Structures are given as structure tokens and as C-alpha cells.
């Protein structure tokens, strides 16, 4: 079944699977043990740490393994409850793993301001300046959005934060493996990552934390991860993530070009098939292969079900369980009217998609929306 929902998650890369299998089969030791089995496991996770650090030009000590991107976000935000400055600035199109956390932390004394985004889904650095208060302790703005793919002017946002000495966090879960990312260029204090968005395993991620940035642990217990994340490490998961990040880094140009080609083929075909389609987001600054498309007059849930009948998987809004057709909050924030909002689907291509796949997707969308 052709899968076009790579922003939700990705199929595991065969080399990653191989790595995880080998590690699971041969190396069961606890990385905290001092004997040979333990040391071997420890070496495996340190190798992964090195692979990851080198992929983003960080130093290995700046990489903290977590149970995924949401946990990494939480660690950064919860840290504010223990530091002096309690005010956070964030954007209107953050993932719930930022916005809901801030909401949850309000009774614990955290306050926050939300920067609006323009119709392209981008934040204006000047607006950021206006929201800075004397007690602002963190600015948290995602680098690229998961629903419309818009990429923020992250360098100028960080410049602004830097000029007033406020730590900057960015949820970069959607970025790695799609566009180049180096902490030498993007000088954030913290960045959150997840392995399963780049053909790695689920349930594992990492936080990049610059050496001088404060951080308090969420999970307390053993001394793992330099006392910042207790619990015996997910050794095969971390090894798989290391491999996934290495592959993403080595093949970045190839993957990026592939996604760009698929996107342009798809958009060309789609415009031939559907005359009423609207492409949302930012035409100049967006993740390759991530397309938010509205089909006015067609409810997204019906579109999804009909595509599934043709064996094609896409998504609408954010993924949810016993879900509904609540308008997407992110599309609302970028000013999309409700009727268009509920007729919007997200298509996100990946490395295993082919030109034929995306042409067939465009043609199928055409025949469904023509009725």
C-alpha cells in the first residue's frame, strides 16, 4: 500500500532494522554494568551518540537520549518550573507536546505568550521582540511545522533571542533528514528529535542541549545520561537511531532531491487533475515533500476513506484515536477558513515513494473530487 504520511511516522530502514536485530540478539548487557557485557552495550550507545552528534555538528556530551521528541520537549519546558524566569514565548502552530505542556504548567507558575503566524505559517521576528518580558526565560519555536511544512526564519528568531540573552528551544522533530541542520548555524540552546520520523525505531529520540544550557531531569532514578534521564537505556533503539541518523546525514542531498522531485511531479499532476485545489503553507520556505492541500467541498475524512479504498494512506489534521473532524488548530492559526480547513489533507512523501506512486495519488484525488 503506497504510504504518503511520513510526517506521522516512517517505515523503518532495512539497515536500521538489521542493526537493531544484531544488537538485540548479541548484546543484552546493561550499559551501567562494568563487566564485559555491560561495557559492550555502553560502547554501542556511545557510538550512536557520536554518530548523532556528528550529524548535527554537536559535541557528543550535548546529546541526551530520551523516549522520543515529546519527552525531549517536556524536559526543556518542565525545567522552567525550577528556574527563576517563568515566562515562555511560543508560536501558535506548535505541536501539542509544547502547547499542551505549557497549558499544563500554568498552575505551577509558568506563563506564556503566543506569537501569531502569517498566512504562510511563519512567525515574524519583529513580533517576537514585542513579546519579550523581563521574566521571559525561554523561547520555544518549532523549526518546521508538521502540518503545513512551513520553515521558520529560525536564524533571525535565534538572533533576537540571543540579543536579549534568552535561551531558545526548537522542536525540530520534522526537520532531520529532510533539510540540513547544524548546531553551528542554528544556535539554539535546545532541540528535540525523534527517531521514527527518519526511518528509525519508535519510542526513542534525543534532546540536543548546548553545554551551557540548564536542564532538569523528568525521570529520576539511576545516573544514566549524566543524571538527566534515569532508566536503563533502550540499547537497540538507540543503536537503531544512531544508524538512522547516520543514513539520513550521509544521504541528505539524495533524499532531499528525491522529495523535491516527487513534490513537483505531484503538484504538476494535481493541478491538471483538480482545478479547485489550494496548496497551503509557504511556497518558498517549506519542508520538501510535505504538502497541505485543500479540496473545497470535499470533507477530509471522506477523502481519507476513499483514498484508503484505493490503497493509499494520507492524513488530515493531526493524527488521533477515536477521532473527529474538528478543524485543525494549526490551519486555523494560519487563517484558513473553517470550510477549507475541514477539506484539507496532508500528504508527506518519503524515500520509498516513486514517481508512479505520486502520479497515481494525484490522479486518484482527481477522480475522487470530480465525483
Amino acid at each position, binding site marked *: 500500500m503506497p504510504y504518503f504520511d511520513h510526517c506521522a511516522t516512517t517505515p523503518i530502514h532495512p539497515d536500521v532494522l538489521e542493526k537493531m536485530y544484531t544488537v538485540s540478539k548479541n548484546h543484552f548487557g546493561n550499559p551501567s554494568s562494568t563487566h564485559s557485557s555491560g561495557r559492550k552495550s555502553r560502547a554501542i550507545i556511545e557510538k550512536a551518540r557520536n554518530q548523532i552528534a556528528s550529524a548535527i555538528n554537536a559535541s557528543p556530551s550535548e546529546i541526551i537520549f530520551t523516549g522520543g521528541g515529546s519527552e525531549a520537549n517536556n524536559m526543556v519546558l518542565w525545567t522552567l518550573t525550577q528556574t527563576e524566569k517563568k515566562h515562555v514565548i511560543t508560536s501558535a502552530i506548535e505541536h501539542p507536546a509544547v502547547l499542551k505542556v505549557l497549558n499544563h504548567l500554568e498552575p505551577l507558575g509558568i506563563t506564556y505568550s503566543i506569537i501569531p503566524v502569517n498566512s504562510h505559517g511563519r512567525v515574524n521576528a519583529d513580533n517576537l521582540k514585542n513579546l519579550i518580558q523581563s521574566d521571559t526565560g525561554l523561547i520555544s519555536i518549532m523549526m518546521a511545522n508538521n502540518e503545513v511544512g512551513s520553515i521558520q526564519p529560525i536564524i533571525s528568531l535565534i538572533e533576537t533571542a540571543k540579543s536579549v540573552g534568552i535561551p531558545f528551544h526548537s522542536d525540530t522533530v520534522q526537520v532531520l533528514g529532510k533539510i540540513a541542520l547544524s548546531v553551528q548555524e542554528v544556535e539554539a540552546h535546545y532541540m528535540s528529535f525523534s527517531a521514527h520520523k527518519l526511518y528509525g525505531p519508535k519510542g526513542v529520540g534525543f534532546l540536543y542541549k548546548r553545554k551551557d544550557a540548564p536542564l532538569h531531569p523528568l525521570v529520576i532514578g539511576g545516573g544514566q545520561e549524566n543524571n538527566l534521564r534515569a532508566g536503563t537505556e533502550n540499547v537497540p533503539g538507540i543503536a537503531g537511531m544512531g544508524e538512522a541518523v547516520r543514513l539520513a546525514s550521509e544521504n541528505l542531498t539524495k533524499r532531499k532531491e528525491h522529495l523535491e522531485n516527487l513534490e513537483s511531479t505531484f503538484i504538476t499532476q494535481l493541478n491538471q487533475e483538480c482545478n479547485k485545489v489550494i496548496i497551503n503553507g509557504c511556497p518558498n520556505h517549506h519542508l520538501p515533500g510535505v504538502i497541505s492541500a485543500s479540496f473545497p467541498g470535499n470533507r477530509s*475524512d*471522506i477523502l*481519507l*476513506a*476513499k483514498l484508503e*479504498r484505493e490503497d493509499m494512506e494520507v492524513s488530515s489534521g493531526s493524527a488521533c484515536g*477515536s*477521532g*473527529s*473532524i474538528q478543524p485543525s488548530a494549526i490551519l486555523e492559526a494560519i487563517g484558513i477558513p473553517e470550510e477549507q480547513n475541514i477539506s484539507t489533507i496532508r500528504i508527506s512523501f518519503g524515500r520509498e515513494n516513486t514517481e508512479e506512486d505520486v502520479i497515481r495519488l494525484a490522479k486518484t484525488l482527481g477522480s475522487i473530487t470530480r465525483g
Partner: protein
Amino acid sequence: MAETIIVGISGGVDSSVTALLLQKQGYNVECIFMKNWEGDDDSQCAAEEDYKDALSVCDHLGLPLHSVNFSKEYWDGVFQYFIDEYAKGRTPNPDVICNREIKFKAFLNYALELGAKKIATGHYARIEKSNGQFKLLKGLDQNKDQSYFLYLLGQDALSKSSFPIGKIDKINVRTIARDSGLSNHSKKDSTGVCFIGEQKFFKDFLKKYIPSEPGTIETINGQVCGQHDGLMYYTMGQRKGLGIGGGYGKKEAPWFVADKDLSRNSLIVAQGHDHPALFHQELKANQVHWIGGSLPKKLSGLSAKIRYRQADQNCEITHITQDRCTVKFDHPQFAITPGQSIVFYQNDECLGGAMIDVRN
């Protein structure tokens, strides 16, 4: 390609077996989980559990599962009516309205939009086509028959619906589920009003939506014998929760709600289950609906139920207009309840029904 039929799946055993049977018959089956209520955490959790059960069943059978949220339609079309009726001191039956407004309207239209030819649900009832008319028949399991809840359906809905388990006994439905490895084969049947859950929460629930006005409880002779918390909390024939012991009065017999005097906000009670004030032989009903689309030509051998699972009671319609009817029973009926439905039958066939308005 096989005809597409969409099953409304609740996570319960009945709708799951419905999907299974249709799949075995060779249809292209897809399932839809409906969410009709946005509630507090408790009802949210229950819906999440039901969704997980539906997901397990669909995964086991290899069927696609979609979700749809009709909570706005439910609120506007069912819940408002429910609250309005209670505010008038009546006892509504939201399930019959839910079937008309949600399952056989919003859901049916949604399924048709998805390209289905028909929908199917796990109701214990049957549909039979004869002489170009679709008839609604009782489920063969007399103990589970749910035609009472379906009397507001019309020809259009029946022509596009299917009730595969209507021919099967509940016990066999569970056996089929177990033999086919469905994980919910022994799941408890749902009871009570779907958005409230257990009956014990009923009072707290109503309190949130309708202001309650306490008043007196009086015997049929006008003697004050207690206080009530608000007429809406009581229904005709109710025995429990009156707060007056059987010892009050001459006999030891329990007390029952006989009537509500809305003008004086009084609850009228009578002592003993067989008290004549609890029985009426005639009622007037409105919102008359006939499944065939118009008044049946032949109304001989008519019977009716004035509540779900009641045995059929012989009766005749003594007066009828487009919207209203007067019904006389062969025998006096216990606790005829305004707001509930009277549903008419000729043997196994459900002809239609009406909303009970007053008793005579």
C-alpha cells in the same frame, strides 16, 4: 467488485458480529465508529475503550475502520429534545430519536457519501420486502427484540439498511463471536442512556442542564407525605427513591409515582402496586409515524408496547388524525408514561408508533 456495505460498529458484540456475518456473505465491508457525545473524562474514557474494542475486532477481521463525530448533530437533534422533554416533566426516550436523527439519517447519509449501497447495524430486528414495501419485523430473539427503538424509521431508511443479527438469538451471537475469536465476545451489554452511563449518575447529570424545583409529594387524596427534589427526577410508576417508607399510611405496601401535577409542582403517589390510580386504559399520543408511510389499511389484531420489552398489549386505535391518535387497551396499563413511545404491532410486524402525551 462486491457491493459495499458500511457497518456502524460500537465496540460491542452485536455490531461486531454484524460486520463478521456480512463479511462472510461476501460483501465489501467497512466499519464506522460513531462518536456522538463530547463529554467529561468518564464518558470520554468509555468511548475510548469502545473504540479500542472496535479497532481490535476490525483488525482481527481485516476490515477498514473509520471514525466520525456526530456530536453536534446529536446535541441539536437528540439532546435538546431530551432536555426539553424533561423540563416539561415528561420522560423521553432518546434512543428512538437517536435512531431517526443519527444512525438512520446522519450516519446513513455519511455512509452513502462514502460510496456504500447500504448500512448495517447490530439491532435485533428484521427487514422484509414484500409488494414493494419494506416491513420492519421483530427480531427472532423475543427477549432481545429492538424493533421498539426503530419505529421512527421510514421506507427510505429501511430500504438502505440491514440487520443481519435479527434472525439470530443473542446467545448464538455470542457463540459466533467466540468461535470467530472476537476479543469482545463476552463484553457486557450496554444499558442506560448512552451519554449518561450508569443510572446512578442520572440525577447529577440532569441537574447540570435543568434547574430543579423542589416541591411536595402528595397522596392521591391530597395529603402531603414528603418532599421531592424536582419533578423531572421522577417517572410514572417509579418506586425507588421517593423517600417515603412503606410504613407511611395504613398498609405496609410501597409507594409508587402515579402522576405529576405540574401547575402545583407536586408529585402524586399511590400506595401498592395494584392501586387503580397507577392504571389507565386509554391514552392520547402525538407525532404519529407509520413505517409504511401512511395509515395501514388494516388495523385488526392490533397490539402495542408502551415501553421496551413489554409484552404486546391488545388495543385499538379509536380515533386518529394525521398527527394524533387515541388508543384504547383491552386491559388497563400500569404507569403509562408521557414522553415515552407507544409502538404498534400486528403480530411480528412493527407498524409504527407515536409519542405518549396524556392518559385517560
